[in-house]
């Protein structure tokens, strides 16, 4: 790297252009509205047709603490988090030095001129910008100055990188729900900043963007919203929740959209009952009451909330009550890192509650699956009369992802084996006896009636204590064995209702990779690197549900080496795989890490090559 002498030392501008292939990280102070600026950048790049992702690294705090936002721009569509930061923007005096250290050699460091870095680096290109001055000149009221100051870096980057100002304008208009005044104020600053940059900065770095056609027909959203909408289209009827990061926005989005999507076409009333509970114990017990009474019921929370729901989940398991539990995973154990991501609740949830249990988990891997599993989980819960865990995580739930427009549910609602008055009447006419927990069809799933069914004999008494096939109290040892073995069978047979794993193959692969959930982009990129740089083609099975389909065992059987990649400390899915497939236990290799950040492709590769 050569370096100039003035005004800031920086590398020669003669390097070849780097187009649509870098990351921008912005360091700001939370509570200063930087999210607006960052989303404006993200959306504008996306609008330009370039694959992007945006990840917010925020503190467990409301105002005044450092926060970072990283946008990855990648022409090949690899949008996992990276540890490399080509372009770093510093808006926070408290972190300017560490922000500077973050820039990769040859990268760009852009900072506001009211900030004074303690040192300088001669291996990066440095620009300063008069953020406060331009904010002052914007005419924004003093209260909003910090906010609009963040628009300055948007404008400067627009100029430096070549981001389309119209796209930024569109992004802002979207952000402000079409409100002209706010849009104009902010866009004015962006424009001014871009003009200022054109007049005052000499481009000395190689990074720029160019329009592409790689995002056409796609949308940008976050996983929690997608899930919320999916649930509303799934006919959700009952939601109970207690606020917790990173799950709150599931419930808040549902609440926001009930008036828009779920006014009864007949009466104009709400067809979803949503209750903010006093705690998670209440939330799950309410949801169980609702599920039992025939409502499509859901509760949304994160790890600490699941922990509190433990006892009730055992009740739902054994009394066979349909209910969906959304677990937007954050870093545990304990309160841990409430604003960071992890796939850390897998073994915990699988064995949740005292006594013998094994639970159903669904792992959406992208925005569209978050939507789909949002409705499908309700079907599965009612079909199998069981608690179903929708295992989200903070990364998928709260960050912005690209996706296809959401697809209308492919099939009518599956309400499972519910008998109403007319059904019981028919059974009676056919001389069939109904008992709540009888395995009539041999699939382990009994028929149920729900509260309100007035047919003679429809009512039964539900309990978490021992009961026989006719729901009568029983302490009989044989009854206990029979009922619990039947439940076990229900879970085994019920796998067919769960989303199958997704297989991606490569020519000549002997290596198998198993992963799940939000690590999808890191795996995709890692496989590319393994193939192109290490000559290691791989097959990849993305697991989407536990208990495992037979395809998972087949996949392991077919590969000499199987690496299970996950974002937790202990290799939790690998543990479940070893239990399920003891015959392959030794070929299951675990590659796992939990540091609160989404996995990077580099790290995935490091454990495999």
């Amino acid at each position, binding site marked *: 790297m050569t370096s100039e002498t003035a005004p800031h030392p920086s590398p020669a501008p003669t390097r070849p252009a780097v187009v649509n292939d870098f990351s921008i990280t912005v360091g700001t102070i939370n509570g200063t509205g930087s999210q607006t600026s960052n989303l404006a950048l993200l959306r504008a790049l*996306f*609008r330009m*047709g370039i694959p992007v992702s945006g990840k917010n690294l925020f503190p467990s705090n409301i105002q005044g603490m450092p926060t970072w936002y990283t946008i990855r721009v990648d022409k090949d569509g690899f949008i996992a988090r990276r540890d490399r930061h080509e372009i770093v923007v510093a808006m926070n005096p408290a972190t300017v030095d560490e922000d500077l250290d973050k820039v990769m050699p040859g990268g760009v460091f852009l900072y506001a001129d009211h900030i004074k870095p303690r040192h300088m680096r001669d291996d990066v290109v440095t620009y300063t910008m008069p953020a406060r001055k331009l904010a002052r000149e914007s005419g924004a009221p003093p209260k909003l100055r910090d906010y609009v100051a963040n628009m300055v870096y948007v404008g400067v980057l627009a100029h430096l990188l070549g981001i389309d100002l119209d796209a930024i304008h569109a*992004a802002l208009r*979207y952000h402000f729900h079409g409100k002209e005044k706010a849009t104009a104020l902010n866009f004015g600053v962006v424009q001014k900043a871009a003009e200022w940059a054109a007049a005052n900065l000499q481009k000395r770095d190689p990074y720029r963007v160019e329009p592409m056609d790689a995002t056409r*027909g796609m*949308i*940008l*959203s976050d996983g929690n919203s997608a899930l919320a*909408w999916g649930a*509303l*289209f*799934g*006919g959700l*009827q*009952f939601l109970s929740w207690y606020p917790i990061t990173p799950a709150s926005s599931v419930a808040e989005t549902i609440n926001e959209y009930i008036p828009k*999507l*779920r006014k009864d*076409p*007949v*009466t104009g*009333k*709400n*067809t979803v*009952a949503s*209750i903010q*509970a*006093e705690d998670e*114990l*209440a939330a799950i*017990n*309410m*949801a*169980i*009451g*609702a*599920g*039992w*009474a*025939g*409502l499509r019921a859901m509760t949304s929370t994160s790890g600490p909330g699941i922990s509190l729901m433990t*006892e*009730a989940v055992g009740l739902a398991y054994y009394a066979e009550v349909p209910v969906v539990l959304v677990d937007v995973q954050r870093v545990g154990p304990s309160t841990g890192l409430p604003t960071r991501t992890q796939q850390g609740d897998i073994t915990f949830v699988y064995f949740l509650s005292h006594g013998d249990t094994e639970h159903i988990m669904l792992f959406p891997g992208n925005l569209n699956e978050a939507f789909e599993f949002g409705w499908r989980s309700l079907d599965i819960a009612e079909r199998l009369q069981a608690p179903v865990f929708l295992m989200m995580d903070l990364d998928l739930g709260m960050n912005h992802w690209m996706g296809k*427009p959401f*697809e*209308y549910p492919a099939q009518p*609602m599956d309400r499972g084996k519910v008998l109403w008055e007319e059904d019981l009447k028919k059974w009676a006419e056919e001389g069939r006896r109904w008992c709540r927990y009888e395995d009539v069809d041999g699939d382990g799933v009994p028929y149920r009636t*729900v*509260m*309100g*069914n*007035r047919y*003679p004999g429809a*009512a*039964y*008494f*539900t*309990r*978490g204590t021992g009961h026989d096939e006719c729901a009568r*109290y029983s302490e009989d040892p044989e009854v206990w064995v029979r009922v619990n073995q039947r439940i076990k069978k229900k879970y085994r047979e019920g796998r067919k209702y769960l989303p199958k794993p997704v297989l991606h193959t490569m020519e000549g692969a002997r290596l198998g990779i198993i992963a799940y959930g939000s690590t999808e982009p890191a795996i995709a990129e890692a496989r590319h690197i393994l193939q192109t740089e290490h000559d290691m083609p791989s097959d990849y099975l993305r697991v989407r549900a536990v208990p495992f389909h037979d395809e998972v065992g087949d996949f392991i059987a077919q590969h000499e080496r199987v690496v299970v990649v996950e974002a937790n400390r202990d290799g939790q899915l690998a543990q479940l795989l070893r239990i399920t497939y003891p015959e392959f236990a030794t070929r299951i290799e675990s590659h796992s890490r939990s540091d609160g950040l989404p996995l990077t492709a580099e790290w995935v590769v490091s454990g495999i090559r």
Partner: protein
Amino acid sequence: MARTNAIGLTKADYKGAPTTLCQGCGHNSILSQIIASLFEMNVRPEDVVKFSGIGCSSKAPTYMLSRSFGFNGLHGRMPALATGALVADRTIKGIGMSGDGDTASIGMGHFKHVIRRNVPFVYIVANNGVYGLTKGQFSATADKGLVLKRQGENPYMPIDICMEALASNASFVARTFAGDPKQVKALLKAAFHHKGLAVIDIISPCVTFNNRPDSRYSYEWAKDHEAALHQIDFVPPEEEIWLGEGLEPGEARPIRLHDGSTIVLKQVDEDYDPTDRFGAIKAIEESYAQNVLLTGLLYIDPEAPNIYDILDLPDEPLNRLPEARLRPPAEALEALNAGLFAA
């Protein structure tokens, strides 16, 4: 032949499995009065649903109303369970049965919050000042100074269920005594017709673990110290209110409920206004000073909005809405997609 009520049912139609509670347990008397009140009110068992937590008291629902749906849930969580279920069908009326351990210890938070939500069901606390099912430990309502076998002396002040309910703005608060079946029945009827949550604290002696005459929860003490605020009559919507032979209007106080039925309080203390929350608190305070067991309808707000009002649900049972009313049409999804930020 057994007597039938106006809808043609006999009392047997309201019965459940044979009780397995101890002989003489107060909870058994409560069960009888629930059965009697529903029978007399001509309520179809199919229109009732039972909930409970864990305890002898919470086992009780098994022993009544076998034609009703029921859910014996987890210790302390009955209020939450009932809330979720009752939302499913507004045409069903709930009876929740809990104990003093179930409500005043592990369930305290839910008790407070179901009160805030004013979920329309009859919340019975079968209160014996002791943990029956786990064999005789102190509950949070046990008298200070009470000595129980194996447990020693209780050093803590008791929780008063009615006081707690009033502190949190309950819309119906009553106290009664399992040994006063008439009053229990009358209050149950009133509670059953109340628009919101009706809390009834029923002193229900545990003959096995807490029935020594020096305990406030014994039959003997309660009988000797009961002080009824009034005599209670319940008049269903269709009947005319009849204030009783030779009774001056001032001597009886009718309270009209949301569904047109009426509670008539007779032989009332002139000064006692059961719609005055603060007066109710005062009366409880004084009852302790006077060392009496104050019973009757302590407080009622017949019009407080209930959870159905708040959630703005259809009048029909939510759990019977067909797919067409639950799943928004394809156009709604198109609109949603169109509203997202697209490339």
